[in-house]
């Protein structure tokens, strides 16, 4: 833990150094509202110019990068969390509008090659997975996020309780792992082409990204909301 803390990013670091060390963070920048072309400016400067709270940016990047890092409640409460819901919404949009359709195009091409009933069963497995993901996101967007917004505005919102939060991430991750295994282990050699390798990389990346997304929800969102719920009840 101490070891992790000493490696956490600070606001004086160059943003480019952070990205060089952890390229996976690149996909986060747009979702956080930061465009490329930041040159050699520090994290604090880039955040200021982009209108992103520096502490919030660092908190997200640290949780995203260091799997063992669990921010203290004090650290979460001491940070401006206005950006949290918009960030999570943008992430959902990124998965649903960009990543999943991209993967689906590759899988469609593979299904065509497989042909017949096998091709259909193969692609419908992915479509079921996609539907699960979309349902999960819709639940969060229609129930959880409005609840957070209300709490942040100081409203006593009893329509939803964080305790009801569906911990269905594991099912979603499980199916994606299944898909990965099927694609890289069991697609017959005669079907193998660039699509197979491309989609394996895409699935691996999505799987990693979704795990980090879960971390952000579990380590930042859930503790924050539980605290706000308690604080409002005590009023």
């Amino acid at each position, binding site marked *: 833990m101490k070891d992790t803390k000493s490696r956490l990013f600070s606001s004086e670091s160059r943003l480019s150094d952070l990205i060089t060390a952890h390229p996976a963070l690149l996909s986060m920048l747009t979702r956080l509202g930061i465009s490329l072309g930041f040159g050699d400016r520090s994290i604090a400067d880039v955040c200021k110019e982009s209108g992103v709270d520096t502490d919030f940016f660092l908190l997200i990047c640290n949780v995203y990068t260091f799997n063992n890092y669990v921010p203290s409640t004090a650290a979460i409460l001491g940070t401006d969390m206005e950006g949290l819901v918009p960030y999570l919404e943008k992430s959902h949009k990124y998965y649903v509008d960009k990543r999943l359709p991209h993967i689906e195009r590759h899988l469609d091409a593979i299904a065509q090659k497989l042909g017949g*009933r096998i091709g259909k*069963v193969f692609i419908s*497995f992915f479509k079921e997975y996609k539907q699960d993901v979309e349902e999960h996101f819709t639940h969060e967007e229609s129930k959880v996020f409005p609840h957070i917004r209300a709490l942040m505005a100081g409203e006593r919102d009893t329509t939803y309780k964080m305790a009801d939060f569906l911990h269905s991430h594991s099912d979603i991750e499980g*199916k994606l*792992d299944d*898909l990965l*295994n*099927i694609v890289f*282990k*069991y697609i017959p050699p005669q079907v193998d082409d660039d699509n197979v390798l491309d989609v394996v990389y895409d699935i691996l990346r999505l799987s990693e990204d979704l795990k980090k997304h879960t971390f952000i929800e579990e380590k930042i969102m859930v503790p924050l909301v539980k605290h706000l719920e308690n604080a409002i009840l005590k009023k």
Partner: protein
Amino acid sequence: MKQRLLIVEPAEVIIEGLKAILEGQIRFKVLEPELDVARLEERIVAARPDILLINPTLVDDVARLRGDHSMAVVALVYQYVERDVLKNYDAVVEIRDSRATIIETLAQTSPGETDTSKGNYELTKRETAVLVQLAQGKTNKEIADALNVSVHTVISHRKNITHKTGIKSVAGLTVYAMLNNLIDESALL
């Protein structure tokens, strides 16, 4: 690792026959057979068998006998035994089975043990049979009935299938079964 096999059977001629068949089988360690059913529960605790091969006429309550021991209970049948009784067992060895069948039946019933240590990730015949039924949308109970084994055994086969293939969901396993030509397209609902 060798499977510890405990035979519970009163007839010495049967015991000696089984010992002869299993002799030289490196997969099994045949424990000193138990002739006295009254001492069986103690014996199971002390001997920790992986497989209990027992004449079903000797026990009324297999579930109680099984307790929380992680062992497979295999029925050793040489007379008529009701189908309903056999359902409580993980497998059935018929005394008229061939030498090879007896060995294979015992080898495949060991609970939670799948021998991937030597790099063997092929599904066994039994695992394949379970997989095919799963792909057809059958429940654990239905599979147990169809294959004449206990639900416990079906679950342990499913664990092994997932361990070997890396695939957990039934939908995923269905795709796997099709890609490996384990099921006919017409067999799917």
